């Protein structure tokens, strides 16, 4: 189905994506059982290599790998030899020497997962868990999974669905991955942001661009609110949080502009009172907590599809029964 690595949502075909989402749906049924564990990846080693802070993504991957019986090693840059100045290459060689079958990497530099996958340092699969301002493919997959379960009576087809992504598009890997994946699934995407938070040449993206949230909300099936990422904002992109909130935040008055069955997504962590009001965040139309649950299923699916079959060495040896 999918190839050896998962580096970018833009690499996924429609068929790949549907395959991952369907696999995730089957794996979700495991959560309802008394024993929430599968023996599928027994004896495989999965490393989470996080150079940036993260709670939910790392925990989500760790839980997904453990539910599939893989051994999990958490490698955080803080408190490791990376903080002593070790390079990505040397860290990778160390992980290879320890026999990692998959490396899940989050890095502040866009392209770090690509480098890790293609430099020949390691043999295992590389999964991008967020690189700089580039991509965060499993977030886009879990968002698509969540949308599939809510829109069109849960029929699963996102073709023609109307989704808006609001906020810091410039710095958002979530937005990039989502625009690519939703487009692949045939959805109609609009990005909404102040002009200062839109990337150069956003017109070339396969989506529409708007500066006015109230203009777009009445036509949506779902809106995805992005976090204002203070840590990536070296300069000032808008005068202050209050003004941002007034022009681009989602409060209950604006939510009421949306069709009654439209839903609100947020990749978390939320800045309540900035991009989303507490009232909206706690309303039944906000599916934020469900996104977290779905994240585990989608990551189990990705791990299964990358590691569940014949390994590269066996393929090379042409081993058969």
């Amino acid at each position, binding site marked *: *189905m999918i190839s050896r690595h998962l580096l970018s949502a833009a690499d996924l075909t429609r068929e790949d994506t549907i395959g991952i989402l369907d696999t995730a749906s*089957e794996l979700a049924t495991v959560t309802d*059982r008394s024993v929430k564990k*599968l023996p599928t990846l027994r004896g495989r080693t999965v490393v989470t290599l996080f150079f940036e802070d993260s709670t939910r993504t790392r925990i989500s991957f760790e839980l997904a790998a453990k539910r599939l019986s893989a051994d999990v090693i958490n490698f955080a840059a803080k408190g490791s030899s990376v903080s002593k100045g070790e390079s990505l290459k040397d860290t990778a060689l160390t992980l290879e020497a320890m026999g990692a079958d998959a490396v899940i990497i989050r890095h502040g530099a866009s392209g770090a997962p690509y480098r890790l996958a293609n430099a020949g340092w390691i043999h295992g699969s590389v999964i991008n868990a967020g690189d700089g301002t580039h991509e965060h493919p499993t977030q886009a997959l879990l968002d698509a999974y969540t949308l599939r379960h809510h829109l069109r009576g849960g029929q699963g087809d996102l073709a023609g669905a109307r989704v808006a992504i609001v906020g810091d598009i410039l710095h958002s890997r979530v937005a990039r991955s989502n625009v690519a994946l939703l487009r692949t699934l045939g959805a109609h995407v609009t990005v909404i942001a102040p002009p200062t938070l839109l990337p150069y040449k956003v017109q070339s993206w396969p989506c529409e661009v708007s500066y006015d949230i109230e203009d777009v909300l009445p036509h949506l099936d779902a809106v995805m609110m992005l976090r204002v990422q203070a840590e990536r904002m070296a300069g000032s992109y808008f005068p202050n949080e209050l003004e941002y909130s007034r022009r681009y935040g989602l409060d209950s008055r604006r939510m009421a502009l949306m069709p009654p069955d439209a839903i609100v997504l947020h990749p978390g962590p939320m800045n309540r009172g900035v991009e989303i009001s507490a009232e909206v965040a706690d309303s039944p139309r906000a599916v934020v907590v469900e996104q977290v649950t779905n994240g585990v299923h989608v990551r189990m699916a990705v791990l*299964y599809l990358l590691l569940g079959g014949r390994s590269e060495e066996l393929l090379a040896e042409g081993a058969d029964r």
Partner: protein
Amino acid sequence: MPERTVLDASDIRRAVRRMSHEILESAKGLDDLVILGIPTRGVYLARRIAGAIGEIEGREVPCGSLDITLYRDDLRLREVRALEPTSIPAVGIDGRVVVLVDDVLYSGRTIRAALDALADVGRPAAVRLAALVDRGHRELPIRPDFIGKNLPTSQGETVRVHLTEIDDEDSVMIRQVDQ
């Protein structure tokens, strides 16, 4: 070597009917019975058996499917496989007599995986095994309780079951594989 039909539609119909009677008789009634088919064709056979039992007894018997892909012992020998649906009836399997249904019983490895999968779902009072065709060559100490047809084969042959639910016709065919 051409393909040879060993069971036709009416043979399959009679076999399913007989197995249904046998299952019902051994279970001494319906109260604890749960029928679980192993995808792909075991699921359709399970539904046929559940339908036949329902007709005989005049009420429905819980019927579902159990995908065993994630429990296979040969995952690493092949390309990754797509998952099939698992649906356990709402009554659950705890304390019940579960009848596993598969189309062809061969090495027994599928059933080994199914037993592992069942143990993760719950704790049945007993597990029975029904197969439309038993072609022998077991590699594990597993034996069926209900058999549609015993079919002596060599390991160089393949047995294919077709069911109208997903194929053109009801048939069981045997063919020598070119070496």
